[in-house]
């Protein structure tokens, strides 16, 4: 885990974990939550001294401040963590593990509950604290967060992290099809043909348009969120030699980021691509930048008018000229 100043890139604190950390952390009320292997960590995110006033410093030069740790019911490297009200929800192999956040030491209190979903695999998305859709090993499941009852289950196999937009949930299945289902009933509104990327390339929804990657060949696609009709697509023009199969030489496994009328994503080619979301532009590609000499699957992030993205071993900031 690490923290850095977005203005300068200066690292503020770092903690190396022997098993690594692959999840996106979660921030709330000055505390950073992250799972590493089988443990949930709470960090004093801003290094303000925490409850004990102690900053941990290690022999390897790491400097951080852990407030508390708590063993998970099951190990996870999948979990985009999310908050529902004040509770922290993790999507692990045990199901939805729910932990309190407004206590000094969660290890002493323990988890609030585990909602069995059949073995979670991927992320989850919640809607107004009422319904949570989680990716599981066998399909996507919707849980009523007030009763913990299963509302519906889509036979979508091991799919992508879902996205909720309005009254609908969008997700990719393990066969490259994109689904749009009614959030409350699970009724399928539309389902695309295959050909899109499978996990971890989740869709993004913005302005009534669903953006979804393809991997063979690499492409970005825009679909009408209401009908599923394809609006446009753009094939990645570059190729990498870092893959054994030519089929995947331009693959996109990056979930897209939509910001400021542009869609950003990375590719196996090692480039960050920026496309305009205009319906019929003269040129779809706005710019591309090499960020990695290795295959790249990272997800760009927009923050205060800039785009941040990771390549192989380095982080890049792209901002206004």
């Amino acid at each position, binding site marked *: 885990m690490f923290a*850095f100043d977005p203005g300068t890139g200066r690292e503020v604190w770092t903690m190396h974990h022997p098993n690594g950390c692959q*999840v*996106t952390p979660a921030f709330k009320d000055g505390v950073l939550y992250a799972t590493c292997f089988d443990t949930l960590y709470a960090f004093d995110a801003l290094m303000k001294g925490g409850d004990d006033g102690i900053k941990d410093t290690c022999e390897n030069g790491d400097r951080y401040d852990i407030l508390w740790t708590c063993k998970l019911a099951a190990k996870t490297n999948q979990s985009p963590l999310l908050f529902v009200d004040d509770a922290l929800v993790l999507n692990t192999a045990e199901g939805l593990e729910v932990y309190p956040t407004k206590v000094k030491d969660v290890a002493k209190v323990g988890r609030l509950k585990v909602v069995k979903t059949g073995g979670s695999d991927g992320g989850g998305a919640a809607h107004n604290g009422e319904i949570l859709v989680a990716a599981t090993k066998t399909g996507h499941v919707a849980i009523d967060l007030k009763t913990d009852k299963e509302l519906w289950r889509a036979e979508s196999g091991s799919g992508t*992290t879902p996205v909720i*937009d309005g009254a609908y949930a969008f997700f990719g299945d393990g066969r490259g099809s994109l689904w749009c289902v009614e959030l409350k009933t699970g009724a399928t509104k539309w389902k695309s043909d295959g050909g899109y990327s499978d996990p971890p390339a*989740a869709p993004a929804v913005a302005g009534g348009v669903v953006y979804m990657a393809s991997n063979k060949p690499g492409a970005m696609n825009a679909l009408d969120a209401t009908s599923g009709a394809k609006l446009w697509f753009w094939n990645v023009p570059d190729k990498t030699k870092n893959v054994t199969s030519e089929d995947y030489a331009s693959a996109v496994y990056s979930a897209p980021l939509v910001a*400021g009328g542009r869609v950003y994503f990375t590719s196996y080619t090692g480039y960050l691509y920026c496309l305009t979301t205009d319906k019929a532009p003269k040129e779809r590609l706005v710019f591309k930048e090499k960020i990695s000499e290795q295959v790249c699957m990272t997800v760009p992030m*927009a923050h205060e008018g800039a*785009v941040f993205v990771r390549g192989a071993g380095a982080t890049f900031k792209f901002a206004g000229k």
Partner: protein
Amino acid sequence: MARFPAVLCVLAALASSAIALVSAPPGLQDKKPRPWDQFGGGPERRNASETKMPATLALSWKKEMGCAVPGRAQFVAGGGLLFGSSP
């Protein structure tokens, strides 16, 4: 007669409140968090379409910072910092 200006003031205040209510940006009318605001991080933040972005972007800085992470992992912002993870 003295009550007349007071009534006018009340009417004016009500009218200005109504105008403010109508003209407030959608995000300010609804205090509930938008769906993607409920997440600590993760791909759900990919819809940043309401984020103001400059017309053109250029490389601002590049820092050696851990290994690249797989598709689902990205940064999360909080308290003026960005946070990330490395495998």
